[in-house]
């Protein structure tokens, strides 16, 4: 029966609202006539689109970027990233200050803010519910509960002392014990949390800043156990007001949100000054409602933005030529006051060659030379201009700009150079056969298989590779697989040659360098590269914080990948975001999935409904 009541009450609310709507218009004209009614304050609404449907609002269960953007506003994690600092910097969110890290990154002591309240919910029985350290412990434990099958379990797996043992025990008993404390998660008092890790991990702070680490209340999760995804109750600046699944989501300000003032420091970007001036000292959040429509077709989103129905638009690649001339906004759009935000994504696109492949793998000088010739034949400038229509940058280093450990001045060993590649192949014994194509030094056939997906852009990648191999007189074979099949084949070391991409989960070089770590074969190491020297150097980097010592090792790692012909870093994508003239205080963030609570819309400048 309680379930019954839960279903009834929203219905009652709707009925009451309807009654209110019907009742209000009648007295309103009287009020206007008498001039006595208080002025109606227009709600500030931010209109946004989402390119794919949400997957529900239980942070432990979701992994997609669109949902993470909403969860970032509903829930709060211990840490977050500063809005304006570049490169991005961790700052406290639920924590009162940055954690005290001791024992070479093994012990993390968090002090929580006091007076953080959960959004109102019937579960709390009409009282205000304060967030405590125990809620954080419960939230972290949920990731390891086998029942939840969390896609971001890896953020905590094998890290916290005693938590993996608890998860194993739950696997056996079928029940996760949330009540007995875990050695690595201690709560000395209501507002203090001491986390002990199994090994050194300087990146644990980044894990604590992920949107899915947003803290939930145990009684809410247990009360709505059947459908936690539909009952998000967090401490964030917004709460879910209205939800039509896969179509329409409305967030409204959380009445219990604590008093926080906008106080970010301008970074090196000259545009920051005006932004800070417009926003400093305002209370967070300024916008009353965030109205999100699911618009899967980029064309519709583009037209909607053009008509002013959307306030901010992420420009998809195919529409970039419509809005941009080179790296500038088209004059017609600029004249309307529309603003272009252009930044390089913390991502890389990189070629990799399977080191265990019978044809291309192996460590003899011939095989290394063949792989390096293949990588040297790739024309990245043409890739940027023709395939990406100018919306990408040449990248040489495995760590992209804006991520800790990046080096924009790194010089590649494998620059585009077909004449040299051909000379190398000639000298290593890859002679041309009577058909004009090269053969292996032992005289057997040489065919290079390149794997792409099925979209029209993948067809362009095929054409690029065909051209590259034609330059070397090597036979080309195209393998077409659906994206999930490609991932599966990569895990089985079945892909010979591919252009892959990686975007930062967290802004640290380790998130990229781990892509070639031997033990990560069958996981992220799609090149199936297993090299004792490389693995030894990489293991050393894990014990070091970001700094010159780690950077020196990263340079060796990057160079070794090129020397052995494993990988060539190709490009970094450029993200283009458009905002309407009435949007204030907006600047896209490379890591945070949404920044709505830091923004404002100008009063009076009302966008079309």
């Amino acid at each position, binding site marked *: 029966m309680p379930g019954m009541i839960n279903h009834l009450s929203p219905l009652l609310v709707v009925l009451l609202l309807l009654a209110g709507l019907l009742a209000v218009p009648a007295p309103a004209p009287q009020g206007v006539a008498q001039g006595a009614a208080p002025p109606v304050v227009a709600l500030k609404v931010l209109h946004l689109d989402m390119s794919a449907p949400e997957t529900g609002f239980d942070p432990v269960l979701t992994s997609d970027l669109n949902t993470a953007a909403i969860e970032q506003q509903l829930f709060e994690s211990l840490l977050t990233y500063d809005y304006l600092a570049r490169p991005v910097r961790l700052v406290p969110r639920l924590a009162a200050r940055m954690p005290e890290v001791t024992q070479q990154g093994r012990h993390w002591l968090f002090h929580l803010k006091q007076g953080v309240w959960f959004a109102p919910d019937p579960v709390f029985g009409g009282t205000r519910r304060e967030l405590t350290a125990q809620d954080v412990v419960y939230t972290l434990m949920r990731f390891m509960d086998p029942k939840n099958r969390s896609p971001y379990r890896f953020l905590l797996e094998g890290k916290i002392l005693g938590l993996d043992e608890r998860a194993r025990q739950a696997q056996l008993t079928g029940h996760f014990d949330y009540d007995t404390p875990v050695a690595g998660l201690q709560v000395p008092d209501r507002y203090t949390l001491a986390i002990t890790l199994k090994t050194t991990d300087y990146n644990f702070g980044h894990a604590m800043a992920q949107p899915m680490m947003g803290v939930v209340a145990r009684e809410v999760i247990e009360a709505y156990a059947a459908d936690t995804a539909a009952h998000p109750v967090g401490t964030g600046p917004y709460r879910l007001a209205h939800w039509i699944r896969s179509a329409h989501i409305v967030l409204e300000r959380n009445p219990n949100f604590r008093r926080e003032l906008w106080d970010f420091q301008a970074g090196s970007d000259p545009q920051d000054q005006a932004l800070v001036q417009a926003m400093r000292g305002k209370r967070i959040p300024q916008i009353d409602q965030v109205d999100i429509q699911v618009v899967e077709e980029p064309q519709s989103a583009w037209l909607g933005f053009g008509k002013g129905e959307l306030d901010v638009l992420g420009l998809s690649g*195919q*529409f970039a*030529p*419509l809005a941009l001339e*080179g790296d500038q906004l088209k004059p017609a759009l600029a004249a309307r006051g529309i603003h272009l935000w252009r930044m390089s994504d913390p991502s890389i696109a990189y070629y990799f060659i399977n080191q265990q492949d019978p044809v291309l793998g192996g460590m003899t*000088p011939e095989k*290394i*030379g063949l792989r*390096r010739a293949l990588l040297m034949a790739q*024309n990245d*400038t*043409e890739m940027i*201009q*023709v395939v990406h*229509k*100018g919306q990408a940058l040449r990248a040489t280093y495995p760590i992209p700009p804006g991520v800790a450990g990046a080096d924009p001045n790194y*010089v*590649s*060993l*494998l*620059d*585009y*150079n*077909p*004449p*040299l590649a051909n*000379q*190398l192949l000639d*000298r*290593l014994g890859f002679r041309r056969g009577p058909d004009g194509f090269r053969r292996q030094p032992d005289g057997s056939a040489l065919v290079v298989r390149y794997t792409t997906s*099925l*979209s*029209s852009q993948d*067809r*362009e990648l*095929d*054409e690029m590779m*065909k*051209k590259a191999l*034609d330059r070397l007189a090597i036979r*080309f074979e*195209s393998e*077409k697989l659906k994206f999930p099949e490609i991932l599966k084949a990569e895990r089985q070391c079945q892909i010979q040659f591919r252009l892959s991409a990686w975007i930062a989960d967290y802004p640290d070089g380790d998130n990229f360098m781990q892509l070639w770590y031997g033990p990560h074969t069958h996981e992220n190491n799609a090149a199936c590269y297993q090299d004792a020297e490389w693995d030894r150097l990489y293991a050393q980097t894990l014990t070091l914080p970001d700094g010159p010592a780690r950077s*020196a090792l990263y*340079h*060796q790692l990057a*160079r*070794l990948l090129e*020397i052995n012909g494993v990988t060539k870093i190709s490009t970094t994508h450029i993200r283009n975001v458009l905002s309407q003239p009435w949007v204030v205080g907006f600047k896209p963030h490379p890591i945070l999935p949404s920044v709505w609570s830091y923004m404002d819309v100008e009063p009076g400048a009302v966008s079309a409904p």
Partner: protein
Amino acid sequence: MLAWRRLRADRVGLGALGVVAGYLLLSLLAALGWVAPHWEAEVGSHYAPPSWLGAAPSEAPWDPAPQSHWPGSVPLYGLQDPLAPLLATLGPPPGGVLAPVEAPRRSTLPLGADKWGHDVLAKVIQGGATSLQVGLFSAVLATFLGTLMGALAGYFGGRVDDAFNWLYGVLTAVPYLLLVFAIAAVLHQKGTGTLILILGLTGWTGVFRLMRAEYLKHRLREYVLAAGALGAGHWRRMFVHILPNTSHVILVQLSQNAVGFIKSEVILSFLGFGVPVDAVSWGRMLHEAQNEMNLGKWWQLAAAGCAMALLVTAFSLLTDALRDALDPRLKS
């Protein structure tokens, strides 16, 4: 001969025949490599406009062959390069920087260039060869299958007829494109041959229906009964006696299917099920034009679209003229 005389009297039909023959000749020459053999050569600048428009105002220029660093001059951070001894014998070039040579490219071409700088005129000709090849071979395959099955079903009737009708019913019950995709998924291979198979295996149903009706009609005619009385076997009666009397249906179906399949190839390539990377077809070109339209580069769309429209129209007119000329009932 009578048919040829009738066709010659039909001006439109004759003109259409000329156009189709011209296309066939051009395609044959292209397939033999005598015309437009180097369509893959990048002779123009990227999106070079058609000559009569003049060169494009220089957009943001970029270097197609950027300078690159000589591997010997790049710091190795204390690591050993196993290829270093070999590289030492090859270089280094003066200044330590290499610039790969790029042949000069033309700023305009007769019908413009695509995104890589391929000559659109050469692509239209080579694409026509592919499209015609696909259209004709798949039409032959479909007509052959349809004729054979129609003949068997119509001639024998009974259980045989039921079996073929069941197959026909099943195939026609599935929406056409869905069926094509299903067969494409089963074949799980891309290429011109696959395309011909797909179109041939799905396209025989129309021919089957007409041929079955013809055989149903003819098998009880006097001349067939007479042939039977003279001792001709089933096979002989079906394919030596009846078949020539249905040839007008076959010919018309053949040309009609060819037109249909050229269009189907375009649709399939447009949807990404088409020819492989090293081939070009009109469908492929129209598919590429999708993205080019956003950039305002219309010439590839115009060239492939016009070439296809002209051929399909000519082929259709020819089919009409053939039907008029070949149908024995239409004696003027």
